[in-house]
């Protein structure tokens, strides 16, 4: 207590110098918090884009579905009763918005003259649109019809990736034939009307992809199995809890969360994190150098006092510790001030809603957001308290090592 008070008085001793040092630390705190808040907002945005972009919060399949090799089509698919059971169970959980089924298949598509390979997806269009307003953005014609239980709808439709349509020379309204191997190993074909053309934004996908209503895919393949059940939640935070609870009830099914289904997200996170780490290290280093300089001045001019205090038997370690406390106090003052300022500015910027130019691969402006978690404040403040202490370390080391006579002689 007495030492803390002593340190505190020494901090207050040269107010201007303390203010400058604390100000430098405050700037560092703002820089770190702003960067962390921006990166966090970006991660969150990207996370939601990934999930809403079709991945969902998690997906359920038969064991091996996500990375296994299928000898015959739908070999690693979920039998209908499993899909129903897990869908029913999921729908009883709070926070589960809905779940939907998908069939993944491949085959040949032909317009009569030309035949090319396709990768197909049987979907429930209504639910896909509920997950993503951006589901299969149509550039010509119309999207797939919704499947309705009570009303008969003509489901014999297909939507094609725009480059696939170009390769085949078909447009909405034309007929195409899809040819594939059934689960029994025989060939099967179906004639469908091209309902519309869509683009994913990724040329490789637009060249190969098509989508049909789920029942069409199943009848083409001669099965009632589904490849995957996609589960969509109210909020992303509860993904792991719900997934592991559901997994307990269905140990024989494989479940993968959005994170493991989106390697792209992880790569971006890793990239951003390394950029942030380098930037953070530079900020910390600059702050450290500047505060070390201040502490050096402050400690050097107290050489005689240090000599006096040591002459009365106060140990070097005790004295040194007190300089570290002084540095820590300056760190705390600076970092807290910076934290308050960062919080305030983040609130303002988030409220005002500044729009940033669209990132590559997107065509909408995104709002500039800072999401600064409580843990970031705690982390940055602790870090800068340590930085403040370390900045006193070298100067105090020199000061307490001096011979007492030399310290006392100091003018």
């Amino acid at each position, binding site marked *: 207590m007495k030492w803390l008070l002593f340190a505190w*008085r020494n901090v207050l001793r040269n107010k201007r110098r303390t203010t400058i040092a604390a100000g430098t630390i405050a700037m560092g705190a703002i820089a770190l918090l702003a960067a962390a808040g921006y990166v966090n907002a970006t991660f969150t945005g990207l996370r939601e884009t990934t999930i809403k972009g079709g991945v969902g919060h998690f997906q359920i399949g038969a064991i091996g579905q996500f990375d296994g090799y299928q000898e015959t089509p739908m070999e690693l698919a979920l039998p209908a009763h499993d899909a129903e059971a897990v869908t029913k169970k999921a729908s009883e959980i709070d926070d589960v918005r809905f779940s939907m089924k998908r069939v993944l298949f491949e085959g040949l598509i032909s317009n009569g003259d030309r035949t090319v390979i396709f990768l197909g997806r049987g979907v429930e269009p209504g639910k896909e649109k509920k997950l993503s307003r951006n589901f299969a953005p149509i550039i010509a014609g119309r999207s797939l019809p919704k499947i309705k239980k009570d009303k008969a709808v003509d489901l014999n439709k297909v939507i094609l990736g725009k480059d696939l349509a170009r390769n085949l020379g078909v447009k909405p309204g034309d007929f195409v034939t899809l040819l594939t191997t059934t689960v029994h190993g025989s060939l099967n074909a179906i004639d469908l009307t091209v309902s519309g053309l869509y683009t994913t934004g990724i040329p490789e996908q637009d060249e190969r992809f098509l989508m049909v209503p789920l029942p069409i895919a199943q009848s083409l393949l001669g099965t009632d199995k589904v490849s995957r059940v996609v589960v969509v939640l109210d909020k992303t935070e509860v993904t792991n809890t719900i997934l592991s609870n559901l997994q307990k009830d269905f140990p024989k099914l494989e479940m993968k969360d959005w994170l493991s289904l989106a390697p792209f997200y992880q790569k971006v996170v890793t990239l951003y994190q390394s950029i942030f780490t380098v930037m953070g290290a530079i900020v910390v280093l600059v702050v450290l150098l500047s505060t070390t300089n201040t502490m050096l001045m402050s400690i050097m001019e107290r050489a005689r006092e240090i000599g006096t205090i040591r002459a009365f038997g*106060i140990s070097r370690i005790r004295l040194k510790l007190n300089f570290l406390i002084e540095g820590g106090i300056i760190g705390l003052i600076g970092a807290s001030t910076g934290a308050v300022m960062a919080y305030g500015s983040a609130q303002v910027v988030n409220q005002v809603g500044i729009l940033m130019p669209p990132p590559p691969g997107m065509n909408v402006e995104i709002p500039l957001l800072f999401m600064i978690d409580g843990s970031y404040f705690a982390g940055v403040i602790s870090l800068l308290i340590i930085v403040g202490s370390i900045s006193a370390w070298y100067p105090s080391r020199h000061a307490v090592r001096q011979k007492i006579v030399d310290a*006392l002689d100091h003018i």
Partner: protein
Amino acid sequence: MNNLLKIQGLSKTFSRGGDTVKALDNVSISLEKETFAAVSGPSGSGKSTLLNIVGTLDRPDSGSVSLEGEEIDYFNEGKLEDIRSNRLGFIFQDFNLIPVLSAVENVEMPLYSSNLSTSERREKAEQALDAVGLADRMEHRPNQLSGGQQQRVAVARALAGTPELVLGDEPTANLDTKSAFLLLDVMENLNQTLGTAFLFSTHDPRILERAKTVFTLEDGVLQS
């Protein structure tokens, strides 16, 4: 045994550039307990050097210093800290009070390393300040005190840890005559009431008169 301090064959050489100065040359001194002794000599004769070495603030080149029969090990920092905090007190020419601490806190400071409770420490410091006649100046900061008052706070600080020996390097040099004599009265009084031994250096012959024993140095050599 009534021996407090025994200095034997103490030598110290300083070198600055190519020059070497023998600041102390084979000095031997004995001090009794409860003594009131002074070191005199012209400027550069080695007074400060002697007091610094006895006070463990500097190391001798050769020779030994014993406190109550126990030789000081100048290379054992832990032991030295213990000696400084429990057995010695210091008064400096420039007072050397800590400006951010009040008078009473300055006096308490040497006791920070003891295991006294806060109230015990405060009581000791108040007693010491009372003994130097500054009971009404406890909470003043050094810059609110006159030079003479500051030096009396310094005396109280030197005595707070109840040392056996208080060392003073020209404690009156920066004081006017009146304050200097007042300080001397205070020191003498403490010497008589508490039995604390004093060893101080001075140029001032009127101050020297008050000492029971006087050692004279010249060019680092003790005169007899």
